[in-house]
């Protein structure tokens, strides 16, 4: 997102180069949500893998439709009071022609709208990592509907929409440090403070059930993030997108190394989960800042984020909030860092001439702007998300029963289990033993409304 600096041309023409690039970038960002699903899905215990996947995939369904219906209008329609947008042509996308260009840019409105759609999809999906193992799928679905409507669409308008307060203030958020990562991280914190901990939190190790799946997720995230970051400049006419691309790679590498180094010193081993988390921490931190810093600055941003997030994920045990897969520790902390570090490392030679404390006239101006952006989004998202979760919990209930949680949410909510390897070692054991793997735990049947499909039960 680069609304602050528009391309010079008075009446830009459709550029097939930028349009093609942005379509691919949009596809890359779309891929991040499955990537996130695998990243999270691999990290939970085997019994809640599918629920984790589904929390991300359902966001691809819900948010797409809402974005078409009214989300795009709320985020990028004409500003009302610096708080929200609305343009009736954007409702249902009925008034958008296939060759209408996004004002000031060389790409069709449809391309801008679909690129931004992918951001709206992944943001609620990010939250789900904190809610592992314990949230009813129906409650999650409803939460996503409400949350994007009340939180994401307005916040995206604040940060990226012409007229939005943070945008007009000059807060820099290249690709979503505040609107996406702080927003999701703060929301996650708000929700988990309301819904509470998993059974066994702090007592059971709850280790990742499949680290290759985690690595697949982080690989796809890293890959897709290039679209997320470099695509946010909406075109490649002036070298800013490439700078962002370069910095994305550099900060991610630096953060991965920093996290592994921290782990090695503190716990004696470089873990795979550490590598994956470190990379994501770097990606998060460079997201707001990558257009503003130099490559060496990107090393600094990445390294700081890597160490800080590695330290931050331990806090949940100290303070006792069950941020299950470290959404707060990585996305909120990483997003805050990335946003604030702009105030220090902005070189004035990237997306704009604004400079941070270490450059230019060493002023704190940009830093205060960044603080305002960070603070505004963080507080709004945390409070509203907590209230939302509270209301949902009091009405339809947010959590599955303890029995369901302990036996595995996959069976309870999705009537499936992630894997069925029985018979892997031989013959048709599969067909016989596989069944129960997917079966309803008979012992839960009593206290379950979805017991419909179990006609006659035994053990």
């Amino acid at each position, binding site marked *: 997102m680069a609304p602050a600096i528009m391309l010079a041309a008075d009446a830009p023409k459709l550029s097939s180069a930028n349009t093609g690039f942005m379509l691919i970038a949009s596809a890359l960002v779309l891929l991040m949500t499955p990537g996130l699903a695998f990243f999270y899905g691999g990290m939970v215990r085997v019994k809640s893998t599918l629920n984790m996947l589904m929390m991300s995939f359902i966001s691809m369904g819900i948010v797409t439709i809402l974005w078409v219906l009214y989300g795009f209008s709320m985020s990028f329609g004409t500003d009302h009071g610096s708080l929200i947008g609305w343009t009736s042509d954007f409702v249902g996308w009925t008034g958008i022609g296939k060759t209408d260009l996004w004002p000031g840019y060389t790409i069709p409105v449809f391309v801008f709208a679909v690129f931004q759609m992918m951001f709206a999809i992944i943001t609620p999906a990010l939250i789900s990592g904190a809610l592992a193992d314990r949230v009813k799928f129906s409650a999650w679905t409803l939460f996503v509907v409400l949350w994007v409507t009340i939180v994401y669409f307005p916040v995206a308008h604040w940060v990226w929409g012409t007229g939005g307060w943070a945008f007009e203030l000059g807060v820099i958020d290249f690709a979503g440090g505040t609107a996406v990562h702080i927003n999701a991280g703060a929301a996650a914190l708000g929700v988990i403070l309301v819904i509470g901990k998993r059974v066994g939190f702090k007592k059971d190790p709850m280790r990742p059930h499949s680290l290759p799946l985690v690595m697949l997720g982080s690989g796809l995230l890293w890959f897709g993030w290039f679209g997320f970051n470099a695509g946010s400049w909406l075109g490649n006419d002036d070298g800013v997108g490439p700078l962002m691309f370069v910095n994305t790679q550099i900060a991610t590498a630096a953060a991965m190394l920093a996290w592994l180094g921290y782990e090695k010193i503190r716990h004696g081993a470089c873990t795979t989960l550490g590598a994956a988390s470190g990379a994501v921490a770097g990606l998060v931190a460079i997201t707001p800042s990558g257009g503003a810093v130099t490559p060496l600055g990107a090393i600094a941003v990445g390294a700081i984020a890597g160490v800080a997030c590695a330290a931050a994920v331990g806090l949940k045990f100290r303070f006792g909030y069950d941020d299950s897969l470290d959404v707060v520790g990585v996305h909120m902390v990483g997003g805050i860092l990335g946003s604030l570090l702009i105030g220090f490392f902005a070189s004035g030679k990237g997306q704009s001439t604004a400079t941070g404390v270490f450059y230019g006239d060493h002023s704190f101006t940009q830093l205060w702007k960044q603080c305002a952006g960070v603070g505004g989004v963080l507080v709004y998202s945390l409070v509203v998300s907590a209230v939302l979760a509270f209301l949902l919990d009091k009405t339809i209930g947010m959590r599955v029963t303890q029995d369901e949680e302990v036996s595995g949410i996959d069976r309870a909510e999705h009537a499936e289990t992630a894997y069925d390897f029985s018979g892997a070692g031989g013959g048709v054991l599969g067909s016989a033993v596989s069944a*129960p793997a997917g079966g*309803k735990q008979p012992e839960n049947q009593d206290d379950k409304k979805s017991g419909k499909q179990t006609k*006659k*039960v*035994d053990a």
Partner: protein
Amino acid sequence: MKLITAVVKPYRLDEIKEALQSFGVHGLTVTEASGYGRQRGHTEVYRGAEYTVDLVPKIRIEVLTEDDDAEELIEAIVKAARTGKIGDGKVWSVPVETAVRVRTGERGPDAL
């Protein structure tokens, strides 16, 4: 000595471990298993088709114990494993002729 085998619901393992521990039992061996009992079979629908499912996941716990402790231990396990619902499982014991601790070669009760 006796070998007590218990085939129980997987999520009772923690309770059983605690019960044994407070009883002073030093070791146990666990295997994943599946099985069915009296009212075998329930029906389930998946992707538009209906199936009978009989084998249900269980865990199988083995504990070697001295003859005198066996009865009490069985009681302790049964109590810890019980939920009162079908599928709670079985516990049985068989006589053991000899037992050896591999590390030291000790025999009999000393090996436990």
